[in-house]
């Protein structure tokens, strides 16, 4: 085409315009498929599960004789496992992250450890289950118990906690550290008064997401914490709490869902549990977002 003849309205050839259009429709289509899937999935779970949900279902222990169905034991077991895991994993994970970013001076060792935690973070959870059974249930003599489950989940969530804490420590400007040290602060004083307060939002968000992983985990807990649907003798004292951790075994919500669906083919109850899990996931995500923005420094 001659230079003078070229006008702005035929800037794109027909072929290029067709190509552009087809790519655009493909992208729209994939977005539409994803949205449809999501809506269908959530809609279907709610549709099947909600009719079966009742206060009694949430607040009672099942009894074949009385003909009562209930997931209270699973709710309580989930709570136990979440609390016990967090109590162990938080000091360990946040502590190692602080060591790795603030104290360790051997860069090679640090990158080796970081590589290892990344690998661990990507490991299938069934492997943690296997190790948990051998180390905690058998070797440490905990048997199948909530505590063995919690320990196994500690292994599983530790890399995540370390990574997220490290990431958020790294966002703290170096100038804060210098400022604190230049005033004669010791290293731990600096970490405690300047670094941790400025990174607490990221650390809390990481923890909340770890809670999400704990609540959603099933394989590890089936192996190590048991599958029973009975209620542990629960009490309100601290002593009772620890006793239960050692003594009782039982299904958490995800494992209960498995029980209902796979062992008993009771899909109504399974879907009702799924609704509860969905609600928990929703709450956890909201909490993570809120923690991220509310705890943001000044």
């Amino acid at each position: 085409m001659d230079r003078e003849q070229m006008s702005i309205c035929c800037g794109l050839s027909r072929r290029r315009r067709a190509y552009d259009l087809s790519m655009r429709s493909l992208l729209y289509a994939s977005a539409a498929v994803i949205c449809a899937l999501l809506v269908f999935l959530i809609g279907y779970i709610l549709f099947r599960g909600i009719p079966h949900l009742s206060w009694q279902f949430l607040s009672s222990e099942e009894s074949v004789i009385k003909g009562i169905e209930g997931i209270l034991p699973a709710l309580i077991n989930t709570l136990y496992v979440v609390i016990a895991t967090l109590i162990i994993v938080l000091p360990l994970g946040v502590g190692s992250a602080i060591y790795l970013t603030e104290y360790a001076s051997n860069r090679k060792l640090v990158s080796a450890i970081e590589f290892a935690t990344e690998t661990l973070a990507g490991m299938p959870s069934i492997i943690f289950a296997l190790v948990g059974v051998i180390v905690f249930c058998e070797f440490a003599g905990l048997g199948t118990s909530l505590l063995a489950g919690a320990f196994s989940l500690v292994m599983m969530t530790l890399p995540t906690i370390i990574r997220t804490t490290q990431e958020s420590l790294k966002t703290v400007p170096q100038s804060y550290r210098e400022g604190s040290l230049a005033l004669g602060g010791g290293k731990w004083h600096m970490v405690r008064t300047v670094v941790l307060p400025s990174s607490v939002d990221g650390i809390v968000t990481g923890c909340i997401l770890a809670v999400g992983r704990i609540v959603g985990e099933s394989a590890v807990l089936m192996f190590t914490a048991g599958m029973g649907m009975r209620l542990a003798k629960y009490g309100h004292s601290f002593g009772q709490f620890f006793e239960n951790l050692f003594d009782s075994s039982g299904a958490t919500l995800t494992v209960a869902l498995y029980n209902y669906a796979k062992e008993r083919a009771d899909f109504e109850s399974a879907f009702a549990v799924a609704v509860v899990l969905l609600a928990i996931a929703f709450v956890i995500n909201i909490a993570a977002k809120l923690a991220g923005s509310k705890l943001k420094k000044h």
Partner: protein
Amino acid sequence: MCDNSEKTIIQSKKLNLYYGENHALKDIDIEIPVNRITALIGPSGCGKSTFLKTLNRMNDLVPGVKIDGQVLYRGEDIYGREVDVTSLRRQIGMVFQKANPFPMSIYDNIAYGPRTHGIRSRARLDEIVERSLRDAAIWEEVKDRLNKSALGLSGGQQQRICIARALAVEPQVLLMDESTSALDPISTSKIEELAMELKNRYTVIMVTHNMQQALRISDYTAFFLLGELVEFGDTQTMFSKPGDKRTEAYITGRFG
């Protein structure tokens, strides 16, 4: 090198510093007089900031740094074995190039140092905070908003907050690392005025890229080039009759 009638507070002897392979300071011998403003000038990368940071051992934080020779503070080697870095830094305070207030209230920023060193009494802290803010010439601007975040202040105000924060631990020496380079002219002149005010009670050592600033406010000037201390002496003399060709070339703006 400098006037014998002056009392020395910091002295370096054959000070050499290496960042790995890089020989950043070469045989620095200097005697810094007490209660004066000493300016460290020289082109970028000449070692003036590095030298400043050896004085409160902030270079310890840099991996791979190696230091030879001596730095004496009131006659004591600060790199000596039994020296406690935290108490050294309490006596030799520092204000950085970029204002770095902590993400806390103005009050907590100023009280940070005293609290670090164990002062808990609220009345005592109130007194220190007010005195420090007055000394840093910012009390009037912030006295009604002490509980507001320090990050909400302007750059010049933040830098004066940082000066107040450094003064709150009652140091003997104040190191200023290009502390006005990120500020507008009005804020800069406030801080210069402040430095002149402070030298009655503190020894001020400042790194500056601004030759006019060195001439305006410093009593002594040290000229660094490629890791060497080329010349050190009385500021007026140095700017009117520099003893070294390189100094003359630099201060007349032929390089740097």
